[in-house]
């Protein structure tokens, strides 16, 4: 099986590094973007197999990115897993409505990340 690529979108360099390590450990190749706008550019150039997505970011936040992504490329691909400090039910509901496949609440560990990726069929 060829290596799957995951786009990690987070304005925190530390979170990107941590997520990269966990994903690479699980066999993914990782590309990074620090806001939604840059993430859209990555997707337009070469669509990743999965997106791990922060919510609060400058320029374009995670939910806006997801709405653009789904409008431009269809309803369910690539799978998008939110990974955010937002942990109220309303955020999970918004994520579902916008077409996210799963939702991770920070802080997270590799077990949670891998579990969520398994749930959406990526592992």
């Amino acid at each position, binding site marked *: 099986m060829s290596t799957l690529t995951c786009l990690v979108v987070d304005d925190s360099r530390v979170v990107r590094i941590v997520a990269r390590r966990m994903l690479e450990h699980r066999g993914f190749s990782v590309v990074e973007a620090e806001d939604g706008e840059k993430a859209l550019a990555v997707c337009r150039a070469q669509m990743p197999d999965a997106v791990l997505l922060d919510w609060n970011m400058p320029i374009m936040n995670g939910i806006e990115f997801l709405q653009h992504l789904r409008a431009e490329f269809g309803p369910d691909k690539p799978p998008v897993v939110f990974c955010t400090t937002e942990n109220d039910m309303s955020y*999970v509901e918004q994520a579902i409505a916008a077409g996210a496949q799963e939702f991770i609440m920070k802080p997270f560990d590799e077990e949670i990340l891998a579990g969520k990726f398994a749930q959406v069929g990526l592992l």
Partner: protein
Amino acid sequence: MSAGFNAISAMLKARSGLIVGPDKLYLLETRLAAMMRREGARDLDALADKLRPGNALEHEVVEAMTTNESLFFRDTKPFDALRLRILPRLHATRPAGAPLRIWSAAASTGQEAYSIAMIAAEMGAALGSRRIEIVGTDIAREPLQRAREGLYSQFEIQRGLPMQLLVKYFSKEEAQWRIKPALRAAVTFREWNLLADLRALGQFDVVFCRNVLIYFDAPTKTRVLEAMARQIAADGVLFLGGAETALGLTHAFHTAAGETAAYTPAAALARVA
């Protein structure tokens, strides 16, 4: 091994079936560390001296050693089997009005029992008006209390639980997440020792007894399996953990065709029930 270790190990086997061999000394010391500090017991010998048959401390030691990790939808296969094949089959073959009864036999903090309840709730119309009774039992009181409260940490609700089910069946309470009342009401939790008489629990159609037998010695495994066989309907199913088997321990079960780690009672024992 010290006399204290041997005494505690023997008590655990007698009370719960749990086997704690010398290779598990670290486990005993780790799990009992807080209790030993509180009791001013500097080692296992000192703790063992304070144990009396049936006293609160002895009960606490049993609880500490038998409480195991639980997560929602742990290993997805049994839950898929339940949803896609077992419940539809049982629903189709049972008379209208007869409830289907499902037992989570080492319920701990309740995640397995509530996962089953979510599956039944999600199946909705496919089960018509069929009542699904879910019973969760455990030897340990404290985790069962948590199970009844249905209150879970952010960490716990992120392990195995799909977000759609989180939104549907939980509500947030400050930093924690509580199972909604309707789902809580679908599950009954009871304190029960698997080594005790199981007959009062009644007959079940599906039993989840996963990752429990691994802690027992072979004669205890056989005894528990045969007692369970008498509580499972002839066309019912027992799920064991992925690393467990009933084969070679008893003739009370056959493997369930097409399923993983699933067993059906052998006819002879089922008739005895």
